[in-house]
């Protein structure tokens, strides 16, 4: 029997999270002896549809996507017609997907926002870094808004959308420098809440460079990427981030694909993989 062919299609391969999903998936796929084809469309969503069509045309056995399924429905329908199962990897649930494997984004955002609120004693001025154009990140912003909104003494200084073309660090840093310049008084900024780690790192650099690291500005990020873990480990302003188990998601997605290839049907539309709040106390334990 020939090896099963699986295509993994994503527009976001340049992002660290996606790289880990893919790594986790690849590792598991190798164990199963599948032939995997990783396709990155460099941010172009319509191209994901195109690549789905190509994969179907190529008669692969299963497809894994990491993109909003509603936007690529045209391609998913082609796969359905051809009877090829598609598994989502952190992409949102959709009837056209066999299932979606992901972390619970609502819970993650709630956890970091509450961490901030508690650390600053429920009052102070907070800078938010958000990115509403990307649905999973947009969710985080909404949840954080709701939580900060529930504390009457928390004031949002600015809700910044950094330019992410460069990965997000440099522009976030420039933005934070400007905000610091506009708020020169000690204590005028209590915390920075970032919807993912890059802006948090940029903000950290800006704060350190402005010589304001001793003001106790609390920075939290999300995703706990390695650079963020390093920063958290040093015990500076960057205090917390949420670790998704990216590798785990990739592994789990592979498990689902394996079950589908065996002909099983999967009931759950979403399969959650647990997350962890990373702080200086536990960062050393995570690898």
């Amino acid at each position, binding site marked *: 029997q020939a090896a099963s062919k699986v295509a993994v299609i994503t527009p976001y391969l340049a992002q660290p999270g996606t790289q880990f999903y893919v790594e986790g998936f690849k590792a598991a796929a190798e164990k199963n002896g599948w032939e995997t084809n990783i396709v990155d469309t460099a941010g172009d969503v319509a191209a994901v549809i195109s690549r789905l069509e190509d994969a179907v045309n*190529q008669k692969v056995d299963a497809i894994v996507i990491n993109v909003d399924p509603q936007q690529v429905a045209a391609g998913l329908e082609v796969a359905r017609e051809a009877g090829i199962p598609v598994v989502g990897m952190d992409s949102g649930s959709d009837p056209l997907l066999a299932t979606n494997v992901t972390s619970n984004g609502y819970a993650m955002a709630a956890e970091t926002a509450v961490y901030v609120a508690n650390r600053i004693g429920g009052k102070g001025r907070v800078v938010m870094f958000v990115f*509403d154009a990307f649905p999973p990140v947009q969710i985080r912003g909404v949840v954080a808004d709701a939580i900060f909104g529930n504390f009457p003494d928390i004031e949002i200084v600015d809700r910044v959308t950094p330019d992410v073309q460069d990965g997000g660090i440099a522009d976030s840093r420039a933005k934070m420098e400007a905000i610091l310049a506009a708020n020169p008084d000690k204590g005028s900024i209590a915390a920075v809440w970032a919807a993912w780690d890059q802006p948090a790192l940029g903000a950290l650099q800006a704060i350190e460079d402005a010589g304001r690291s001793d003001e106790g500005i609390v920075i939290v990020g999300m995703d706990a990427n390695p650079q963020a873990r390093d920063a958290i480990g040093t015990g500076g302003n960057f205090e917390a981030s949420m670790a998704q188990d990216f590798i785990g998601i990739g592994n789990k997605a592979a498990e689902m694909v394996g079950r589908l290839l065996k002909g099983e049907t999967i009931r759950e539309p979403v399969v959650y993989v647990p997350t962890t709040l990373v702080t200086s106390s536990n960062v050393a334990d995570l690898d």
Partner: protein
Amino acid sequence: MISLFKRYGTLVGFIAIVAFFWFNLPDTFMTARNWLNISQQISMLAVVAFTMTFVMVMGDFDLSVGSMASLSGITAALLFSQGYPVAAGVAAALAMGILGGFFNGFLVSILGILPFVATLGTLTMFSGLAFWLSDGKTIFGRDIPKTFSGFARGGVDIELAGTLALKIPYLSILALLVLAAVWLVLEQTSFGRRLYAIGGNYEAARLAGVKVRRLRMAAFALTGFGAAIGGLMYASRVASANPTQGSGLMLDAIAAVFLGMTMSEEGEPRVLATLVGVLILGVLDNGLTQMSVDSYIREILVGAIILTAVASSSVGKFRR
């Protein structure tokens, strides 16, 4: 012989690419179904590139088409989400395209700003506008009417011997219609010929009494219009609109026109040559994916292949 090769080097390159994939993917590449796929995949880029030809014929270019495409998608989707009918949303998006195009034309032609600066400025403005209108969010799901997103999924069924043989996608048909229209306008109307005259020798055209400013405005408006069509096609295909989705179109559209330019004697753009440029980009993407080439290597290859295709045709042809 050599000069023929020089002239058609890019075309020869394209044929070589097709032959290569045909050989390496004997079962799946050279099928009607795959070509229909390709035609649909490139349709948006094609429309934008075809209409980009209008301004490039004059020696100008328009960097704002990508963000205009996004803006057009957002405009339509926003109206849909407020309950306006599909026709209204589409009309508004197209109007936005024409308006934005005129604005570009005004900046370039009346105010005399270099096209690169002018359209880089409007690129930023249109993109900001798209973000602002949509509040940075992706508009999707219930907000997008099925009639709208259905367009990109539909097609004309072709029956052979009573069974459904093929479905020619509406998107591909639309792109072909735009191609025909652009070809007619550029090659067979005095409007188009005057655009070529402006591109060939601005001063000569002016001295001969060609209304250069007005024509330049009009050409930019047409390019904006095309960008809006492209944006709508994109939105229909992904059944959603977000403020960045068109941004990949700009460089590719310009590249396609330039690729085509290598095939004309005096280096002027021709819309049929632009089609070849678009096809090269589309076929490479399709074939390399089917061959499971690693995405990163694929990038390197695409760059190298394009350069090779072009190099053979441009040796010694252009001085600049």
